[in-house]
């Protein structure tokens, strides 16, 4: 009886101890501190560099991509072997991409000169897509499908890519939107909001009409001051709004295209 009780209590304790240990093991943030400690204590700079790479991986695991990228930025690249250097560059590109800093990701992509692998081509294609460098993105995506498939599968994958890249978004220039707003509703139309542009045109016309009507009636002060103030507000407001709409259009178009690109590329087995 005693032996049964003893083994029962012991097993409860062991479960608790191991679950606690497991919880600590999965605590990536604490692990990151431990790797920082390893880098701090390391006598060999190479060991310190490797500890920092591991620390960055911990941050990546807990979703702190910007911190992961910053940690990788502290790694002494000159200490690493060429292969390891390429690996760290890939991780930097990935972390910056996940952190939403696509220009920085692209800069690390350009720095890399190692052998192309499916995962690198996938990441490059996504980064270039986010930077609106469509032709380069398409080239990387094609290289990825070439690497993964052949025969009918390759033809199908290339056809899907062609179909997607045939419809790349045409981004709007905010300055052009503002310039076109001098003739409402052209600025709004350029940003894809015709109905709002017509409302803006109506307000501008009302302000201008008031000015003309009052001046013709001999009320010069009322016409020029009142109408001028109103026209200033409607026309300038329309210009500002056009710039805003162009920015919003670009954001939505980029997001839509890149989401579709990501979905398409992640379907390929072996690329992840």
């Amino acid at each position: 009886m005693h032996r049964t009780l003893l083994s029962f209590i012991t097993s409860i304790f062991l479960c608790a101890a191991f679950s606690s240990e497991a919880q600590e093991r999965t605590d990536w943030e604490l692990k990151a501190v431990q790797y920082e400690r390893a880098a701090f204590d390391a006598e060999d700079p190479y060991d310190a560099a490797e500890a920092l790479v591991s620390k960055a991986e911990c941050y990546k695991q807990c979703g702190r991509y910007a911190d992961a990228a910053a940690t990788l930025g502290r790694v002494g690249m000159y200490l690493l072997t060429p292969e390891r250097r390429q690996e760290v560059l890939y991780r930097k590109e990935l972390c910056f991409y996940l952190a939403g800093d696509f220009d920085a990701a692209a800069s690390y992509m350009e720095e890399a000169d190692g052998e192309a692998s499916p995962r690198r081509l996938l990441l490059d294609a996504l980064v270039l897509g986010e930077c609106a460098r469509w032709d380069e993105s398409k080239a990387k995506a094609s290289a990825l499908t070439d690497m993964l498939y052949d025969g009918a599968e390759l033809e199908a994958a290339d056809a899907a890519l062609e179909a997607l890249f045939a419809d790349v978004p045409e981004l709007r220039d905010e300055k052009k939107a503002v310039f076109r707003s001098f003739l409402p509703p052209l600025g709004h139309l350029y940003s894809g909001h015709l109905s709002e542009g017509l409302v803006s045109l109506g307000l501008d016309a009302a302000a201008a009409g008031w000015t003309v009507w009052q001046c013709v009636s001999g009320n010069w002060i009322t016409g020029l001051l009142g109408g001028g103030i109103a026209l200033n507000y409607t026309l300038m407001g329309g210009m500002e709004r056009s710039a805003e709409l162009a920015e919003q259009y670009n954001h939505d178009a980029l997001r839509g295209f890149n989401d579709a690109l990501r979905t398409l590329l992640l379907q390929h087995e072996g690329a992840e």
Partner: protein
Amino acid sequence: MRRLCCLFFMALTLPSFAQRSYASKDAAFVDYLIGNNMEDEAVLLLTRSRYHSSDTLQYLRGWANYSAKRLEAAAEAFDKVPAGSPFHDKSLFFNVISNAHLGNLSRSSELLGSYDGPFKELKSLEEAGIALLEDRRDDFIAATGGFTFSQYALTESERALQGIFNERYYGRSKSPALAAAASAVVPGLGKVYAGELSEGVAAFLTVGSLAAITAENWAKYGVKDWKTILFGTLGAVFYIGNIYGSYVSVSIHNNDLRNAQDTAILYHIHIPLRSVFQ
């Protein structure tokens, strides 16, 4: 059964004791983390690792939290550093600053009142700063009795506090009523007085334009014409709104000035600590 209980107790307590270490072992690493802008990691290390309870641990926790701008946690940890500890003086003064930033000025005063250590002039500086923050004019004057203006780390802050005191109690503050009166005479003038030149010009042009339009319509069509009534009403609304706005602008200006002074006080009671306890 007694043997069983013993075994159970040992199994429960031994692992935690076995893994504990002394915080002093990690002090250099914690300093390194804080010095390299990794304060959050220092806090994590000190809260999640298993350490024997000690004054070093409490001091390091306080210091890490203070550096990470977690002032409540910092104050709580500094409070636990006992009087005989080599970290006591530094903990106490940084506890004063933490509480001052949190708005617990009475706690800061209480901590300073309990201090009887070697940093007497620093204590006077902190007391003067807290008195100024609490608007205790006489206490500020009493505390400045401890200023010697001869200690390198303290002189600049002592002069700065004296300057803020003079500005606050002997300087000219702007009058909201005067701003309102100025805007009543010339629309926008009160805003200019409050330091808002562009707002003042805009108010002048708006009220002036509406007045001109009203005058034109009044002269041509009489006082009962709809345009006279419309623009006259709009003009009156803007005119009265501008008077009220000028009053509020000066009040905001005075409030901003006071906040800026408070920020400067907190800065000047904090900076010397870094030099003194470096």
